C-alpha cells in the first residue's frame, strides 16, 4: 500500500512525462493528417482544373484550408482538437485561421469595431507584421545582391 504522500510524489513523477509523450504523438498525427487533407485538396483541384498553374493551385488550397479551419472553429470543433493536438493544430494554416476566428468570436460582445475587428488580430497581428517585415527585408537583400551582380 502507498501512503498518501508517497502517492502524490509518484503521481508528480509520472504524470507530466506521460502527458508530454502523448502530446508529442498527438501533434505528429494531427499535424500529418491536416497536411494530408491539404494535399488531397490540391490534388482534387489539379484533377478538376488541369490547366491551373502551381501558384493558383497553392492559393486555392490555402483558401480552402483556411475556410475549413475557420468553419471548424466557428462550430467549436477546432478548439477541442487543439486541446489534445497542441502544435499539431496550431502550426498548419488551419491554426492561423483559428487564431483569427477564435478571438473575433470571443470578443464579439465588446462591439463590432472594437470587439470583432480589433481583436481578430490579437494573435494574427504579430504573424502578419513579422512576416511582412522579414519578407521585405529578404526582398531588399536580393535587390542589393542584384545590384552587385
Amino acid at each position, binding site marked *: 500500500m502507498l501512503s498518501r504522500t508517497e502517492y502524490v510524489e509518484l503521481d508528480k513523477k509520472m504524470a507530466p512525462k506521460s502527458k508530454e509523450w502523448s502530446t508529442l504523438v498527438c501533434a505528429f498525427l494531427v499535424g500529418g493528417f491536416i497536411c494530408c487533407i491539404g*494535399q488531397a485538396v490540391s490534388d482534387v483541384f489539379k484533377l478538376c482544373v488541369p490547366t491551373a498553374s502551381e501558384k493558383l493551385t497553392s492559393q486555392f488550397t490555402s483558401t480552402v484550408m483556411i475556410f475549413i479551419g475557420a468553419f471548424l472553429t466557428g462550430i467549436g470543433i477546432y478548439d477541442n482538437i487543439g486541446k489534445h493536438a497542441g502544435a499539431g493544430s496550431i502550426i498548419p494554416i488551419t491554426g492561423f485561421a483559428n487564431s483569427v476566428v477564435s478571438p473575433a*468570436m470571443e470578443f464579439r460582445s465588446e462591439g463590432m469595431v472594437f470587439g470583432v475587428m480589433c481583436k481578430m488580430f490579437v494573435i494574427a497581428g504579430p504573424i502578419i507584421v513579422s512576416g511582412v517585415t522579414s519578407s521585405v527585408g529578404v526582398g531588399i537583400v536580393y535587390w542589393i545582391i542584384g545590384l552587385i551582380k
Partner: protein
Amino acid sequence: MIVTYLKVFAVGGLVCLIGQILINLTKMTSSKILVTFLLIGVVLEAIKVFDFVKDFAGAGITIPIVGFGSTLAKGAIEGVQKFGLIGALTGGMQAAAAGLSAAILFGFLISLIFKARTKV
C-alpha cells in the same frame, strides 16, 4: 500516390512535432510558435532550401505556417526581380493575398454567424 501521402504525413507531422517539443520545453504561446515557424519559412525560402523540401513533401511543408512565410519571401524576391526595389514591398503581400484575405473574410463572417461558447 500512397507514397506521396506518406511523405506529406511524415514531414507535416514532423514539423508539428518540432513545434510541440518547443511548446513542451519552453512553454511558448501559440502566437510565438506561429511567428517562429513563419520566420523559419522566410529563411528557408531566402536560402533557396524550401523548394527542395517542397518537391519532396508537397503539402507537408506548404500547409504548415512555414509555407506562408515562404510564399511571402518568394513573392518579395520575384517582385524585386520584376519591378526593382518597389517589388520588395508589393511582391510579398501580393503572393500571400489569397490566404490573408481569406483569413480576414472568413474570420469576420464566421464570427458574425456563430456565437462564442463558454470556455470550459
